[in-house]
């Protein structure tokens, strides 16, 4: 199924008798959900881009690349820095903006600027009963009624198929610099990242690669803005971390390559095993990582995000232990463990209740999240 309009999509869902697998660019093999494939790619195109109002509205099937090019032409960007999962998941195809929103995909800058969901201003979607729903709008501040935009972000197509999304976009900075600290252990790196994020220097990336592009561990701290300001803050942070002899990378291409390695978890590419994505309290990260016994690790968000490569079938949640506060997602897994962290009973009941209301026939990616 490949609807070209929202109306057509609504009809298809109303007429559907069995499960549907919602697919944007299909840059991932759609988990364990079965059913007929419903592609969003024919509902494509930028509907509105107002650079002076920092807003962009696009149909959900629009390729991410098209959106990034349009923004680039105006010196703007999606500040939440969506990752490209193709290398990690071994998929090809063109990621769509709907897939990014449905998965709430956010990269290193999430720690400073916010997640994909924080930049979503409005959505239109068709729910599992074929009802067309609009929520939010295209203005920066909107508290008119409930925030179903947040509900749709990260709902993985289980509540509705998004047809149009409005985003807040931001100007690209004039300059970027990355402090590179070599040779630290996670136990040493996380406090450094924490200190950087707790400084007044507006750090927009704080990551630790136990295995950097050249093999050795690298700890990265990014700052962005106007040239003089970046130079100033780079200098102040260098003083702060003088004991670790930081090198300041100001070359745009080399800096971008480092952050792409973090964002796309490049050190895992081509390696066998299961990929887990763990959101935690940053200072817990070194201890949690030790407990995971992973074959490879990447720390982002100052330690608040751990990517772990585990042997096939290993249960990260089991290894994290009962006291773990946060959540672990099996992003690339071979076993039959739940993809998403099971929720405590009363919360799971609310999620199930919402699913029953928005998708009463259980058509949309059934079983993917629950």
């Amino acid at each position, binding site marked *: 199924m490949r609807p070209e309009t929202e109306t057509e999509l609504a009809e298809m869902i109303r007429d559907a008798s069995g499960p549907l697998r919602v697919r944007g660019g299909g840059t991932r093999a759609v988990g364990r959900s079965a059913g007929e494939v419903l592609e969003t790619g024919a509902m494509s195109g930028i509907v509105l881009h107002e650079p002076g109002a920092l807003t962009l509205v696009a149909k959900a099937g629009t390729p991410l690349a098209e959106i990034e090019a349009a923004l680039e032409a105006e010196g703007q960007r999606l500040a939440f820095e969506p990752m490209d999962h193709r290398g990690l998941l071994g998929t090809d195809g063109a990621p769509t903006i709907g897939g990014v929103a449905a998965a709430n995909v956010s990269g290193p800058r999430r720690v400073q600027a916010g997640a994909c969901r924080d930049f979503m201003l409005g959505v239109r979607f068709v729910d599992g009963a074929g009802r067309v729903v609009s929520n939010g709008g295209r203005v920066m501040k909107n508290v008119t009624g409930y925030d179903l935009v947040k509900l749709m972000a990260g709902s993985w197509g289980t509540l509705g198929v998004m047809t149009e999304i409005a985003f807040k976009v931001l100007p690209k900075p004039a300059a970027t610099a990355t402090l590179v600290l070599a040779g630290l252990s996670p136990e040493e790196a996380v406090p450094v990242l924490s200190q950087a994020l707790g400084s007044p220097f507006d750090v927009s990336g704080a990551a630790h690669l136990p295995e950097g592009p050249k093999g050795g561990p690298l700890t990265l701290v990014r700052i962005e803005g106007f040239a003089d300001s970046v130079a100033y803050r780079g200098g102040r942070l260098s003083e702060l971390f003088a004991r670790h002899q930081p090198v300041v990378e100001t070359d745009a291409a080399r800096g971008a390559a480092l952050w792409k390695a973090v964002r796309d978890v490049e050190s895992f590419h081509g390696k066998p095993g299961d990929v887990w994505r763990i959101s935690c309290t940053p200072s817990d990260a070194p201890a949690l990582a030790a407990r995971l016994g992973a074959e490879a690790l990447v720390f982002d968000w100052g330690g608040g995000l751990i990517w772990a490569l585990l042997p096939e079938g290993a249960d990260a949640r089991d290894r994290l232990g009962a006291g773990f506060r946060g959540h672990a*997602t099996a992003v690339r897994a071979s076993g039959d463990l739940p993809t998403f962290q099971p929720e405590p009973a009363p919360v799971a009941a609310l999620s199930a209740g919402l699913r029953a209301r928005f998708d009463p026939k259980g058509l949309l990616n059934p079983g993917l999240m629950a």
Partner: protein
Amino acid sequence: MQMPEPDARVLSRKAEIVARLREVLPADAVIDDEAETRAYECDALTAYRCPPLCAVLPASTEEVSAVLTICHEEGVPVVPRGSGTSLAGGALPTADSVILGVARMNEVLETDYENRFIRVQTGRTNLSVTGAVEEEDFFYAPDPSSQLACAIAGNIAMNSGGAHCLKYGVTTNNLLGVTMVLMDGTVIELGGAHLDPGGLDLLGLVCGSEGQLGVVTEATLRILRKPEGARPVLIAFNSNEVAGECVSDIIKAGVLPVAIEFMDRPCIVACEAFAKAGYPDCEALLIVEVEGSEAEIAEQLGLITQIARRHDPVELREAQDADEAGRIWLGRKSAFGAMGQINDYMCLDGTIPVSALPQVLRRISELSREIGLEVANVFHAGDGNMHPLILFNANQPGELEKCEALGAEILKLCVEVGGCLTGEHGVGIEKRDLMSVQYAPADLEAQMAVKDVFDPGWLLNPAKVFPLAVSEARRAVAAE
């Protein structure tokens, strides 16, 4: 403003209900004396008042749970209340409702600078959250003008914003987790010290749900390190249009000021008379604030003034020191007080695309002339959040109705140009009946479906947000 008929069955059982509440709360935490319940008869939308059945002031999540369990069993509507500064009537009681105030729950539970969060009970005021972390040079970013009084509870319920949210976002962007009690007394935790949910974003759904999904008792909030410094510049123009264009150009140029505030002539005149801040005689005034080190501030202000000069400002005043900065903000910060001196006023909160600013301001002044009430505009221009203040005399019969009619026209205009009814104050009762202007029946149905899941009996703050006719069937089932 119509409110539903109070439930006679509840009214007749008042004594029993109060007695049951007294069993689970200390004596002084249940207020049923008629003179004392008057303290809870309204919020900052003072035109509407109604004393509740009684008010309760629990001191812990457990007590909140005990209260809700009883109200659930008795079928009594509950209206959660923080500090009662809502401008939308969000905390307005009905005669058959229990006001559940969280004012006694104001403790700081945990402060963690390493992980940059604070956990508080939600009765704590917004400003005192920053107060609790200030000594380490941290702050909590959302800063509603009411921050001295308003509680985190109300901020979460309304997803409140402030002057500095252009850079730091509104409440939802700074809220990491909550402890919340559902109407049946169940206590749940959403989020925590980590980022983003593992399942559906229920936290995002709860923020801005106006006390209709649960009672939020504790919150984990993101705190940030204070910038090294901040400085405003004042730019005066001879027309609203040009000021609007200047805002748009500043944003396009890649400067992201922390605040861009806009005042029009009626507002400037009133503030000047009240606060004597020394504002220039002009049609429109911008206050743009930037942050950083001295050098960074100079760099950004240099760029902003360069852009402003291209638009022929009547005056451009850069603060040279803290004193001058204070004076630039003085007028703006006293805007509401200044209006209050002149007259009664109603503060609207519609949001528009920044590009529509000149057109909307022009239309507002036409409407104001047609209806015969003065409107002063002061607002967060960077994000298009308007605050038209309609001046009226509440003692003159018919003026409130005239004022509400003008307000409705202005809000419809905001929706027409691609904006929304409310950017930060919430719907409450004030904009309830206008919801159908912005949302189609299916849109409202989807939102109400969420309430059905969290509060199947429609007992929590039931007469708000949705037009009464639209929510009637659901509330009727609840009353049975």
